[in-house]
């Protein structure tokens, strides 16, 4: 079961390596990372000549929704992971907003077991912060953590009551577990369906103002600071939210930020003629805000980039904009979205890869996400320049509600390995 890939451009954001070399994998782990080596390892049973393609750690995604259990017509763990590995994602965290909600240890174990038997990627369950995600009663955070939940979150809707959130945070801090929260003041975001502003005004749609996110972030970081809880601000959409996190961190709070890959790519104008595939929360912001977010990413101030994969079947999307569900399928477009920031933007390849590999792994204390000896051999081979047309009928997730549908993208994963096993091989669409 040993594998050698040679003549590859090794990219490891954790160590800063960007050199030609080879890797040797045995029993699921990296055994040797050999810079400069252009031939196969002599002990390897399988050898692959990468022909100069990029070899990087597999992507680690902190936010994926599936419909399992309960809404399998949207997505299962198996279909999500099929899509994930095709997009180069080898580890992902699944959100607890399912039916039933993942709010006790039996359900956490169910996810883990289901994923083991059906998923080709590594799947990590997130537990609910409050029972039923209702925001009233604390869920069994400790027991779920023991059963394998890696992070706790209230999903798409934040805990509205600050007093309950504070108690949950204090409790979580004592257990040493991490909380992920959407900074979103619902009273202000209200019934909004797209970015607030003149475009929303002209289209006659109610808006979600940026202040809703800022106030949410200020509240959440203040409580994290007060309780000592480790907090991930989930999917920030403005640079000012990143500033709020940074200020809290400067005072000693343990605060991280994530952003959705699509928020670097689209702006509010993409909603265009009421395109519901572009209805996401947080919404696509105006162009200035999008550019500001890219700047924050360039400065390294956004800790992780997530797919925010949220599969929605046609019956939830083929509706008037205001009535359609939020959410975008995103597993297969994280890497091309990040690479667009290399091709057309200010990022280097390593800067684009860090927030989707080692940095999210580090937040959760996972060993993968790097090319390092004796860590899990999760890796991808990709061609950063390969052009392709994203068409939803060719996406591998069960729901294909991608805002990238019809877009020309650049950069494609050609092979994906999880624990040294090849789980995805690109076959061009005839």
């Amino acid at each position, binding site marked *: 079961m040993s594998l050698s890939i040679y003549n590859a451009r090794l990219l490891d954001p954790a160590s800063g390596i960007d050199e030609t070399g080879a890797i040797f994998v045995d029993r699921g782990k990296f055994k040797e990372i050999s810079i400069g080596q252009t031939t196969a390892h002599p002990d390897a049973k399988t050898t692959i000549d990468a022909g100069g393609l990029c070899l990087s750690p597999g992507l680690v995604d902190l936010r994926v929704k599936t419909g399992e259990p309960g809404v399998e017509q949207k997505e299962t763990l198996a279909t999500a992971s099929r899509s994930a590995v095709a997009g180069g994602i080898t580890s992902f965290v699944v959100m607890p907003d399912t039916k039933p909600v993942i709010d006790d240890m039996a359900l956490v174990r169910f996810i883990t077991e289901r994923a083991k038997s059906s998923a080709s990627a590594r799947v990590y369950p997130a537990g609910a912060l409050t029972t039923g995600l209702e925001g009233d009663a604390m869920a069994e955070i400790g027991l779920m953590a023991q059963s394998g939940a890696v992070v706790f979150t209230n999903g798409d809707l934040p805990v509205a009551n600050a007093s309950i959130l504070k108690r949950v945070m204090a409790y979580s801090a004592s257990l040493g577990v991490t909380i992920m929260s959407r900074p979103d003041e619902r009273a202000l975001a209200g019934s909004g369906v797209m970015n607030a502003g003149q475009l929303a*005004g002209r289209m006659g749609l109610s808006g979600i103002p940026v202040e809703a996110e800022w106030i949410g972030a200020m509240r959440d970081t203040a409580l994290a600071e007060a309780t000592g809880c480790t907090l991930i601000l989930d999917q920030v959409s403005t640079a000012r939210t990143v500033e709020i996190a940074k200020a809290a961190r400067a005072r000693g709070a343990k605060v991280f930020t994530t952003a959705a890959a699509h928020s670097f790519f689209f702006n509010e104008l993409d909603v265009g003629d009421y395109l519901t595939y572009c209805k996401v929360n947080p919404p696509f912001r105006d162009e200035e805000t999008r550019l500001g977010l890219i700047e924050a990413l360039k400065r390294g101030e956004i800790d992780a980039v997530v797919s925010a994969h949220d599969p929605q079947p046609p019956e939830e999307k083929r509706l*008037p904009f205001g009535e359609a569900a939020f959410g975008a399928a995103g597993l297969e477009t994280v890497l091309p979205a990040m690479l667009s920031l290399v091709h057309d933007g200010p990022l280097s390849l390593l800067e684009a890869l860090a927030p989707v590999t080692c940095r999210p792994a580090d937040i959760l204390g996972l060993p993968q996400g790097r090319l390092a000896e004796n860590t899990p051999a999760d890796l991808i081979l990709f061609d950063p320049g390969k052009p392709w047309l994203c068409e939803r009928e060719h996406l591998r997730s069960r729901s294909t509600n991608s805002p990238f549908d019809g877009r020309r993208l650049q950069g494609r994963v050609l092979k994906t390995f999880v624990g040294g096993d090849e789980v995805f091989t690109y076959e061009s669409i005839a």
Partner: protein
Amino acid sequence: MNDKTDFPIFPHRHLLGMAGLSYPDIQTLLDRADADVDVSRQQEKKKSVLRGRTQINLFFEASTRTQASFELAGKRLGADVMNMSVASSSVKKGETLIDTAMTLNAMKPDALIVRHSASGGPKLLSRKVDCAVINAGDGTHQHPTQGLLDTLTIRRTKGSIEGLKIVICGDIAHSRVARSTTQALHIMGAEVHLCAPRTLLPAGTETWGAANATTNFDKALKGADIVMMLRLQMERMDGAFLPSRREYFSFFGLTKERLALAKPDATVMHPGPMNRGIEIESAIADGEQSVITQQVEMGVAVREAVLHLLAGGRT
């Protein structure tokens, strides 16, 4: 009378909003409507341009005047008109707008008149059907025939539209009429001033074509040729948009004293239905400067013109 020989050029398949309509497009529509007004004033009002054509009025939101106006317009042109009033609440969960559209499309209508509570609803529907779709009001987005009938009323009252100072006052934020009328009048060269309390005045009205947006009604009224009052949507009063009707009337109600700030020959308009005593004094609504009932008459004419141009194409 043969209306088909001199069929004017109107390069649109649907009428979903004012966006995309050009100055000549609107001229064409208004000229057509002008002719229809004359016919409507005769004893014999019926024409045959839409004979054999089917018009379906699909109203997902309750409406009396707009639906009646479209029905009358279609009938005067000789179309077979069918009314489908689907109050939103009674649309069974599961039957989506698209399903409804596809069902009706199978009945081969020539025009679908659609009112829907969701902004963009008629647009979505238009992608799924083969016939002309006419937006009869969608959420807080557009109400294009209202914009056109206001424009026609003004043109007939003042002779031309270019250079007129038009003040639109009321709940701009929730008004699809404000959006369509502002755009239409801007295209035709008027100077449109929008006026509302800050909470009902959205950002970016300049992108609709408004010359100015203000919270000071008295100032806005100076030198106005047209004063158009919008209905205060009372159902919105709960969300702390306004303190009270009384306070609203004292700052934004159109009274005799206020109207005196406008030009002496200023014309008063209202798309209806009116809240007398809240946004407009009865004496003014029924006064000689008011053209509110003419607006209703122009509504039928404009809808005839739209139907004629979209559904009465050369065969």
